[in-house]
């Protein structure tokens, strides 16, 4: 009958549909279960240390600096080092990969959690590395006697455990230096040089401002520039040991000296000696480009930027100078605020730790450090490296690196969560919307929380 036939047909259709869906579900479950292999884990080729042409290994390196196509960039030097190493070690192939800086440390965090990724990872040679140190392999033996030629103080201490185990090497010496536009200074009737004292610096900037020129190219959108200024003032108010103790939570960030240093930075803003649009400008690339385009007289920049500024400013590039000495400085003369730059570590999951360690030992050797300097003006960490330059600003830095008392201040080694407190509140501090003491109190609390969560490695 019609209805019975209809019912039977409906049941049959539903049964067929159910069977189809069941097959689909099973199929989805089978396909969705596999996980992808993330990262660039290298292929294994024996123990790595015994790699030779007959047993080649590939080691992958990741950082945010590898841009060999950009003239004068760090990537040019890194490529030269990689090529030289491969030539000397035909059994080892280097694959060097760039990751965007914005997401780099989030990626590193994920790689450490997954225990998968490149053989060598870039990082900052600071105690913030302690956040990631569980993913790093000890390289004390791999670096061996080269370690003696790389200073063990600020440059390397961040990569040491309390037992002296090495977890990373610095790639170069970082630091801060003042740059100036001599054309604008002459136009303002100011002596074309970096003033040697803070009071002379303020006086010069007020005269420059009176001439309708921006005295200090400044941007606080990302907050880091305020930290740089604070770093250079505060470094003069603390001993080298105190500066080293800050990121270990042993020296307070909210002490009277730290507050005083930040208040001195604030006077630059109170007096209007900064860029008028400073709240909208981030350091990279806008602020750097702004000085390079001749938008202001002075700029507090980083070591290694002199070559690019020399090219962009041309005849107006006056050169560089040490940060002015403040009254109340613990030091009789100016010094270079030098910090650990970027660095590299061997990943604990690497199947080629021997080869990776061999690469890092080469990386801090005289030959590699000279290549990095020649190709990308990376200042050598190896004290045996003798380099010279025909560019006066570079020669200045080489000379100043040898000055006594060169050390960093409180900011250079801050872990990310602590630095974030300062950078996120930088504009508010400089405009007076938030008290400096309250922000430094908050930073100190963040520092205490960090050292509790990520103590100095004990092995």
């Amino acid at each position: 009958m019609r209805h019975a036939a209809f019912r039977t047909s409906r049941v049959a259709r539903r049964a067929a549909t159910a069977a189809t869906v069941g097959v689909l579900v099973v199929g989805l479950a089978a396909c969705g279960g596999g996980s992808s292999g993330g990262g660039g884990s290298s292929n294994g080729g024996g123990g790595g240390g015994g790699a030779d042409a007959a047993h080649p290994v590939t080691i992958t390196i990741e950082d945010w600096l590898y841009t060999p196509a950009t003239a004068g960039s760090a990537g040019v030097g890194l490529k030269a080092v990689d090529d030289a190493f491969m030539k000397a070690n035909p059994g080892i192939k280097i694959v060097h990969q760039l990751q965007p800086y914005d997401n780099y440390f989030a990626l590193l965090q994920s790689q450490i959690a997954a225990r998968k990724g490149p053989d060598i990872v870039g990082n900052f040679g600071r105690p913030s590395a302690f956040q990631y140190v569980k993913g790093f392999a000890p390289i004390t033996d791999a670096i061996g006697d080269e370690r003696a030629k790389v200073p063990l103080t600020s440059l390397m201490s961040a990569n040491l455990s309390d037992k002296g185990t090495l977890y990373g090497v610095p790639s170069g010496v970082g630091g801060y230096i003042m740059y100036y536009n001599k054309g604008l200074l002459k136009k303002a009737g100011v002596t074309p040089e970096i003033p040697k004292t803070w009071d002379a610096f303020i006086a010069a900037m007020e005269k420059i401002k009176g001439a309708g020129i921006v005295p200090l190219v400044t941007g606080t959108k990302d907050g880091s520039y305020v930290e740089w200024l604070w770093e250079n003032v505060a470094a003069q108010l603390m001993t080298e040991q105190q500066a080293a103790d800050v990121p270990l939570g042993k020296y307070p960030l909210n002490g009277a000296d730290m507050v005083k240093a930040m208040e001195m930075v604030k006077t630059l803003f109170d007096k209007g000696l900064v860029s008028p649009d400073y709240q909208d400008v981030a350091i990279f690339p806008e602020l750097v480009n702004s000085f390079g385009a001749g938008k202001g007289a002075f700029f507090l920049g980083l070591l290694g930027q002199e070559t690019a500024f020399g090219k962009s400013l041309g005849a107006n590039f006056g050169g560089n100078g040490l940060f002015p000495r403040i009254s109340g400085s613990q030091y009789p003369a100016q010094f270079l605020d030098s910090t650990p730059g970027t660095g590299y570590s061997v990943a604990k999951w690497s199947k080629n730790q021997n080869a990776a360690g061999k690469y890092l030992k080469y990386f801090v050797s005289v030959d590699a450090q000279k290549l990095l300097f020649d190709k990308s003006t990376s200042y050598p960490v190896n004290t045996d490296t003798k380099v010279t330059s025909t560019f006066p600003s570079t020669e200045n830095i080489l000379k100043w690196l040898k000055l006594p008392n060169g050390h960093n201040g409180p900011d250079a080694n801050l872990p990310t969560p602590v630095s974030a407190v300062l950078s996120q509140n930088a504009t508010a501090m400089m405009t007076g919307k938030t008290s400096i003491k309250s922000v430094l109190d908050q930073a100190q609390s963040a520092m205490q929380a960090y050292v509790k969560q990520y103590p100095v490695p004990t092995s």
Partner: protein
Amino acid sequence: MSAAVRADSGPIVAAASRPAAAPGRLLAKAADLLFVLPLLALIGVFILLPSLLALGYSFTNWDPGYSSPWVGLANYQTLFADPTFHKVVVNEAVLLIGIPVWLIVPLIIATLLHGEVRGAGVFRSIYFFPAVLSPAILGILFSQLLKGDGAINQLLRHIGLGVFAGNWLSNPSLVKFTIIAVVAWASMGTGVVIFSSALSALPVELFEVAEIDGAGWWQRFRYVVIPGLLSTVRLYVVLLVITVFIGLFPWIFTLTQGGPSGTSTTVDYDIYQRALSFGQFGAAAAESVLMLLTIAVIFALGTLVVRASRSRPHRTEGPAS
């Protein structure tokens, strides 16, 4: 009772008098369940399971891939004591103010385009254009347009409205309202399309009768459109509330990075920052749980309000003639 089908029985009566076969009904229900099972599995694996895991991890010092010891309520205590978290709560409360703007503007535009409007399809396409672009790209674009010397301020100065030029993204007092305005522009098209589609499903006679009765545009909007689209509006509000809590990340990341001074940090951005920048995974998990609870409370309150309004007698009379 056996099924005795009389020749003069209609098929409905015949079917009604015939007892249903139990195995057939079970098979039908099983088949229905199998249809939704794949989607349920996906929701379970990608939404429910991670939510439950986050709840569990929120009570630990979570270190993904490594030992994560139990810490009880420490992560929650850390959050409640953290000034940054306080700012996030305030920021979210202010951003909720954007919902009426994000709702009413597309609703009015969709109503204006409803009916015999020449080129309505073209207008809808133009309004929808921002919705097909990535918020990240739009955010980068607007971060340049809204700078102190950006195009928007330059235009304002050029037309003599320089007094209104401002630091749209770097002024703590302005930044959240700037974000609301940017998101309003970007999401307008989606709302216009949704409401246009809902309007086209309304009986045309309702509008004709209202017009015959002398209702003006506003009265038609108030007494025909809004009641007719109430279920669509409710659904859209649900989506907007969810957006405020978990949909603004690309805007914050590209426009402000949570600044200035954390005045535009949203809860999703803060969770990302805590977890992936600071390595505070336990606190980030706790914040995720709090976010989920907040959304649940908002919806519960909204449901109560809707039920209360339904229990009131309806206004049946139309516009005054």
